[in-house]
């Protein structure tokens, strides 16, 4: 098990390195001069060609790409001093570059933004897993009945409404018109747990319930299948209570495919929920990344891509570990 985790972490590391190279290459060989955005920001869009030339030179864009990647990679582990335009900045390890706009190390900003996104992701996941799986199980147990049909139809209709519309309407009704929820936003858990909770409650509910619809249908299907398995008949023939049969025998088997989907969804959430963060004014990765894209704040964009790739690698590893716990036939080698 330990050897397996180490092996997976190493291969995950390689994946992240390859992605970092890809991102690096993108902004090196991209259609636009990479020094341009910074020059634009610094000069208020009055960047003259001579100045651009100087920026390019300072930032090393006239150097070889391999050498610059080497410098970047070294910065991640050892920190570096880098020049943005004319001014040198110290960027301590792990250095992911300097934010063009704030002139802060990207890592320092990431440390502030990521907990917000993580909070949204974890809270929403708890809700959509609990709501989605329990309604899915309910529908599967009552399959063919009115309960089942209305759950299936209801979730289908609800999930076909775009998320941003649901989120906007929820925001409009529940906080602005009805005042049922306090203003949304992210407050660090360690400073004020109550504010953290109340600020995130509506985003959690909206994201969780909207996302739960696909889990309802998914766990219903999976549960219907596992309830038809021979070992369920065996469990009933043993004289077990139907609750034991459903939750201990059928649900455990039905969870395997649900875990797969959850791993992917959770990684997506960790990479930032752009709509939710934007609409509920949460300063997380998604909003940060989106803002960075609009002004071509390249170091921030590449940092959010790296976060997403790490999230995918880690959650895939977690999914595989959960598999091995759920199903003894899965051998981790």
């Amino acid at each position: 098990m330990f050897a397996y985790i180490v092996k997976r972490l190493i291969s995950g590391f390689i994946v992240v390195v390859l992605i970092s190279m890809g991102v690096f290459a993108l902004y090196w060989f991209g259609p636009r001069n990479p020094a341009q955005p910074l020059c634009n920001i610094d000069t208020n869009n009055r960047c003259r060609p001579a100045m651009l030339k100087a920026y390019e030179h300072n930032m090393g864009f006239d150097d070889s790409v391999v050498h610059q990647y080497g410098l970047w990679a070294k910065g991640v582990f050892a920190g570096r001093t880098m020049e943005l335009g004319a001014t040198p900045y110290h960027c301590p390890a792990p250095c992911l570059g300097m934010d063009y706009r704030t002139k802060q190390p990207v890592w320092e900003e990431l440390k502030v933004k990521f907990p917000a996104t993580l909070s949204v992701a974890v809270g929403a996941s708890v809700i959509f897993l609990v709501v989605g799986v329990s309604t899915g199980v309910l529908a599967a147990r009552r399959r063919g009945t009115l309960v089942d049909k209305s759950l299936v139809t209801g979730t289908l209709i609800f999930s076909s409404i775009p998320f941003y519309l649901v989120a906007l309407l929820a925001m409009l009704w529940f906080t602005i018109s009805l005042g049922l929820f306090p203003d949304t936003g992210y407050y660090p858990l360690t400073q004020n747990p109550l504010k953290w909770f109340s600020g995130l409650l509506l985003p959690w509910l909206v994201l969780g319930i909207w996302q739960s619809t696909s889990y309802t249908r998914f766990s219903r299907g999976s549960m219907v299948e596992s309830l038809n398995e021979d070992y369920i008949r065996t469990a009933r023939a043993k004289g077990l209570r139907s609750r034991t049969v459903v939750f201990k025998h059928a649900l455990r088997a039905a969870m395997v495919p649900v875990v797969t989907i959850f791993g992917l969804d959770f990684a997506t959430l960790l990479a930032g929920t752009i709509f939710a963060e934007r609409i509920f004014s949460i300063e997380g990765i998604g909003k940060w990344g989106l803002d960075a894209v609009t002004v071509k704040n390249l170091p921030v964009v590449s940092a959010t891509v790296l976060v997403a790739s790490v999230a995918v690698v880690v959650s895939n590893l977690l999914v595989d570990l959960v598999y091995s716990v759920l199903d003894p036939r899965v051998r981790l080698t």
Partner: protein
Amino acid sequence: MTTTTSPRPDLSAGSAGNGDPLLVVEDLTVRFPTHDGLVQAVTGLSYQVEQGRTLGIVGESGSGKSVSSMAVLGLHDMKRTQMSGSIRLDGKEIVGMSEHRLMKIRGKEAAMIFQDPLSALHPFYSVGKQLSEAYLVHNDVSRKQARARAVEMLDRVGIPQARTRVDDYPHQFSGGMRQRVMIAMALINDPKLLIADEPTTALDVTVQAQILDLLQELQRDFNSAIVIITHDLGVVAEMADDVLVMYAGRCVEYGPGNEILTLPEMPYTWGLLSSVPDVSAAADARLIPIRGNPPSLLNPPKGCPFHPRCDHSDKVPGDLCSTQLPDLSAASTGGVHIKRCHLANPQEIFKGDVLPEIAPDLVEELSAGTSDEDEAEAR
């Protein structure tokens, strides 16, 4: 429904004589409403099994043999099933019993073994967990005691190193060993009735014999009644005291095992016998399958359900076979042997037409009068 029950011979001969037999099924009818119509899975089925005896239920896929046995444990989803008639297990009426009371009977008084032990055991739980779960649900004991009981049962059914293997998962056992685990699980609460639904179908032949031997040995020790469901007449010959042949959800022939195998009176049973390969026969000997396909249970044929496939219906005057369902009537051998067929002289046809084709050597022996060896030969 022209007939469902008919007066049947007294079956209690050979019983201990203390009232009702252990399992009495009377006029059992099981139907499933579906989008396409009503599936008439079992119609008017009656049989009895006594303590310590074995009943073999034979028939092809879809003949209602599994459906009728699942009904004995009340395993059908009653919201989707129409059931009538009576099933009495040790005097208790199963049809219409509440789920709560059924749970106390399942696994405790009647247990079941299924066809494919790999899919019938939960892949995610160790066999020890699954066995002790079956014990814990009916006995007020600690987990430790239940585990000890699980080890004891695994040992009893012949699993080597039961003490260490108890923590293994089903996929770590071979097919035969898995079926032993199933048997251990079924017998862990010492049930009076064991229903074995094609217990050897998924196993290879050498293992089949071991499993059948094990079942017989355990039956002697536990004195339980066994209902063995199979389409393999070899299994019936080996195990069954009595045999019930089912076709299209009905009993078509019933009687003592040796009579059904040697002097059957229903063309469907003849067909079953004809389709059993005989190892001792010549290599080019013909295997005669029953022509046609099993009938649709949504819309079973009028009259005798077997008549569209029957080679002998022309020997019945008029169109009786296609218009009127034959009653279950006493066979010419007398005793408890009954059959559902219009043929007036089935024994003559069997000896004259059927037997020479499937076992020519047997005809000579029969004419020589060595009927004691018939049963052995019929295997």
